[in-house]
């Protein structure tokens, strides 16, 4: 009971100091509004808005059809390009795809000569290149088919494959990215806020003061965890309702309260990491570097930016222990697939457990940290 009260009262102090710091407040607001919107507008995992150039040496009806078949949202409207510019334009990364339609293409198609057209793909744009090439090929084939069927009819194939995409029928990325943006912000802010709270307290000498009072390091750490988590949790909730649902019009299938409950568990883990890093770093510059070393892998390898399945086996195995990956996985389950508690509780338990591990590590470092101040 006294522990609980101590944690509560110490936490109110954390909240008060946070609310006084307008710079931090401003950055938190930015992270949960503009940063989310910016991320929802960029697509990391699919073909959206791919840039296409077209060299039309045929100038026929068919080549015109093909050019017009590249439509948003997958592709930008193709821009006409000269044949001699293909290489420099590709080199400059101006276009990801350049389609080259040879002279007399339409004539050769109609004559059944099976001419070839060339699709140049910038294969350094990994995600767009692979998928986009498949799409482009399909678009071109369909268009040629359609052109021919004006005169000739093709019987429907015997077996038809109907693909239905569940939960996100148009496979839109704005949905995906906005929520992944929230995840990134949560991870970043929780680590920095909690870590800086420890380093700041130490630099201002108030840590000593706390440690000679009848409060335990556990209570000090827990107070920082709940106060900083609460701030971020509120920001997350507001962001879900007003930014993701309101501004970005993303339909959320599942229960936001359940997602927030999961976020709270994840925050417990990330703030615990922050506190641990705060006890390891001796100065703010060191904290900054430590933060990058921990945050970047946590974020880039969580599955929010590239799929976990595509990682090499050894790394995928390691990342299975990353609470960030669990967080991404249960967030997707709840928000897109409408999964309930019975589906995600294992992830919840794992994240909570990881938080406890780092809390214990941070506790072990706490007193040594005070000694190291000298």
């Amino acid at each position, binding site marked *: 009971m006294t522990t609980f009260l101590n944690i509560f009262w110490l936490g109110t102090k954390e909240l008060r100091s946070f609310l006084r710091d307008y*710079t931090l407040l401003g950055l938190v607001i930015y992270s949960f509004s503009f940063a989310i919107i910016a991320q929802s507008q960029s697509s990391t995992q699919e073909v959206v808005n791919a840039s296409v150039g077209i060299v039309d040496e045929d100038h026929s009806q068919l080549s015109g059809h093909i050019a017009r078949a590249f439509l948003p949202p997958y592709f930008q409207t193709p821009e006409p390009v000269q044949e001699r510019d293909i290489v420099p334009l590709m080199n400059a*990364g101006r276009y*990801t795809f350049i389609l080259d339609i040879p002279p007399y293409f339409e004539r050769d198609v109609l004559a059944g000569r099976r001419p070839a057209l*060339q699709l140049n793909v910038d294969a350094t744009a990994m995600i767009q290149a692979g998928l986009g090439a498949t799409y482009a090929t399909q678009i071109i084939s369909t268009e040629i088919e359609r052109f021919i069927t004006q005169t000739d009819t093709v019987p429907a194939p015997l077996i038809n*494959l109907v*693909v239905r995409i569940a939960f996100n029928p148009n496979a839109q990325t704005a949905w995906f990215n906005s929520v992944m943006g929230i995840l*990134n912000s949560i991870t970043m802010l929780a680590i920095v806020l909690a870590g800086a709270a420890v380093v700041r307290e130490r630099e201002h000498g108030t840590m000593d003061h706390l440690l000679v009072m*009848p409060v335990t390091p556990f209570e000090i750490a827990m107070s920082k965890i709940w106060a900083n988590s609460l701030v971020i949790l509120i920001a997350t909730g507001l962001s879900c309702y007003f930014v993701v649902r309101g501004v970005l019009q993303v339909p959320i299938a599942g229960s936001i309260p359940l997602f927030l409950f999961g976020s709270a568990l994840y925050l417990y883990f990330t703030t615990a990491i922050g506190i641990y890093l705060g006890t390891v770093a001796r100065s703010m510059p060191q904290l900054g570097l430590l*933060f990058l070393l921990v945050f970047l892998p946590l974020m880039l390898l969580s599955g929010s930016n590239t799929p976990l399945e*595509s990682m090499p086996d050894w790394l995928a195995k390691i990342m299975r222990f990353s609470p960030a990956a669990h967080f991404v996985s249960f967030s997707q389950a709840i928000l897109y697939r409408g999964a309930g508690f019975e589906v995600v509780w294992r992830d919840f338990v794992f994240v909570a457990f990881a938080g406890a591990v780092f809390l214990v590590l941070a506790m072990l470092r706490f007193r040594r940290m005070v000694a190291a101040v000298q």
Partner: protein
Amino acid sequence: MTGGTIAALREVTQRYGKAVALDRVTLDIPNGCIVGLIGPDGVGKSSLLSIVAGARRVQQGKATVLGGDIADKAHRVAIYPQVAYMPQGLGKNLYPDLSIRENIEYFGRLFGQGKAERDARIADLLASTGLTPFADRPAKKLSGGMKQKLGLCCALIHDPDLLILDEPTTGVDPLSRRQFWDLIDRIKARRPNISVLVATAYMEEAQRFDFLVAMNDGKVVATGTPEALKHQSGTATIEEAFIALLPEADRSGRVALTIPPRPNLDGGEPVIVARDLTCRFGDFTAVDHVSFKIERGEIFGFLGSNGCGKTTTMKMLTGLLPPTEGEALLFGQPLEAGDLQARMRVGYMSQAFSLYTELTVRQNLDLHARLFHLKPADARARIADLIARFGLEEHVDQRAEDLPLGIRQRLSLAVAIVHRPEMLILDEPTSGVDPVARDRFWELLIGLSRNEGVTIFVSTHFMNEAERCDRISLMHSGRVLATDTPAGLVARRGAASLEEAFIAYLEEATKAQTTQEVDVVAPPPPVAHAAPARGFSLLRLTACTIRETLELLRDPIRLGFALFGTAFLLLVFGFGISTDVNELKFAVLDHDRSHESRAYLEEVRGSAYFVEKPPLADYAEMDRRLASGEIDCAIEIPPGFGRNIARGRPTEVAAWLDGARPFVAQTIRGYLQGMHLLYLADPAVAMNPSAEKAPARVEVRLKYNQNFESVYAMVPSTMSMMLALFPAILMALAIVREKELGSITNLYVTPVTRLEFLLGKQVPYIGLALVNFFILFLMALFVFQVPLKGSFLTLLLATVIYVTATTGYGMLISAFASTQIAALFGTAILTVLPATMFSGMLVPVSSLTGLGRVLGRLFPMSYYLPVSLGAFTKGLGFADLGTNLLILTLFVPVLWSLSLMLLRKQER
């Protein structure tokens, strides 16, 4: 040129927010003598000194220094070489990681001295201050007295005409203090023309000065020689004279402090017992076999200089630090870390403020009452009592950071005793507090001791406070020199005063290591006041570079993180981030279970991309397993599939994909459609007789990366990201750190220009980033086997420009931010997102829209990534990448200009 004034202030007013630091001050400071500024803390002494030094902007009024208006920039530049300024706070403008020699060299370079002149001057200064044997010791390992001498050396390196010292002796032991003033006297003797302007909190020192300026509450109360001041007020000492000069209101409540004798409590066992307490940090012994006993109700003092081990001893007694050797007993019990019961009986006031400055007086008291579990009713009464007793009524709702120092000190004490402890441990509670406030504070302490029987263990460096203790221990270099009543100590040494006695003990203790201060007989080096190079000076820039480089090299942890951290991340991302989608989990809902359905599914099962999970029984199971993410895809074969095919009737296969990850869903769709076509075209199936050849072929040419391997794209991309984030975050703390720690003052008062300062500091980080680049480059070649197909020189040139731009990004944030936290936070938020999302690492820049596009365009990585990819994977050279290089280059002057605009050459 003695006679006349060296500086004159007319109606100078200075405000910080609502607080008025200087209130229409008009003052003439005589030339060629030692002028002392005396007065309590926070009355505007420091503001006045920093204005005269040119470090702070004059808000209102006019200040003339050395014959010109200090607000005039040209005049300031002209007089930098004639003025030296040592700001308040021991060694605050020094660089703790640099050695004594390196610190002085830095200042010498700033003033444009060549090596020969510098060396001669340094040798002279070190010899005359007795620092020669310690020339290679880092400043952070110096004692208070040595730091202060080093500060003086740095100030004197350029032979100034006006030496401004802000509380140079605060917190220094009396012997060092005496030596310091002797040193000043010798300097004065050697250079009679030098004017010294000094602020001090020790009234007894004021006696030595030629001319005094007494200040109170932002105003000058009196000026004159010490004799004149004493005569004017009819008092015997300067301290009394000063108090007599104060307005009536400020003197109220001042009574001659009397200490009632300690009642013989006969408390039996002592409250605190220390036996051979020893504390070592590495090979440094901070506290060396300290033993003492403190009885109930006693006021026990620790007297000693900064860094002599007082604080460490106190920390051991509070359980904050475990002793290396020896033991401490509190209330007869061995001290155990984490013993919460014992803590309830102890109150502690640490040297740094033990207050939350962002909370109000009442909030601070409330918080502590709650942490000590006072019952609400009891807490209310107790807090009301403390507020009344400590005179905090009018400040109850003010935030602690807005309180004057003296009031803050009282609040600290109130907070420390809110739970009625039996024992108080106070670490230099009155440091920096004016005499009146100190007396009030001691009244409270004496009341606690005599009326409530509270045992008080207090450390101080003020002699008159030590005299008020029942017993004191003299401490020096971690050892207790002597313990007795103040009168007893004086008697034992046969000295005239406690200070004399302490000095006698100190001299005895330090005899072995006495610093030999040589009065250099040789004439001072020729005073060559060569006007400082106006405009840009490479020498001063180099000075900043050398210093920053040394500091960077002295922090191996930071260096290690920066170099090996990036290497580690490149390994992880280079191998880890891959866009090849495989191991897709699928399950089958086969209503048909015929030969044909198995043949169809064989296409999927045989694929390297798919992994089969146990089959599905019904739609409910399909929904559940898709929702839980257990499978990515379900394939449903309708009833009668085989029969329909056999009879040539059209039929449909359905595939259900998890759309939560659009990229994966789209990839699966592509794979399935491909397999479907393969199945249809398979001659073995031969059930599609009309299948005709496609009318045209699409030749897909994967340029640059024929095998479509992630590593060729990921490694150059990750390198770009590392070289954006790490240099930026390293640089971001470089300037703001100086702002927070105080050494930024050197920018304000030396001839170094802002441009030299910024560029000089940037160079080492550019160098570090280039080392980093070479490590990453070699890893790309040999670990990842990514060959460099294009021009190395182009890549190198682009990298140099790029890291200049990314460090410039950090520099801009650093120039803008006022605290390290804000800088760290800001850099993280403003660089990580553009670097990972909007610079082409995962999404081509040409596909970005909206806000992301803007953020990406404003970030240098957008222009370096194509160069890195181009040089590695596309085999490009300068001709192809020229545009990107040009845009990258544009970032540099823009970032420099913005940083220059945000960095001020004077404090507001």
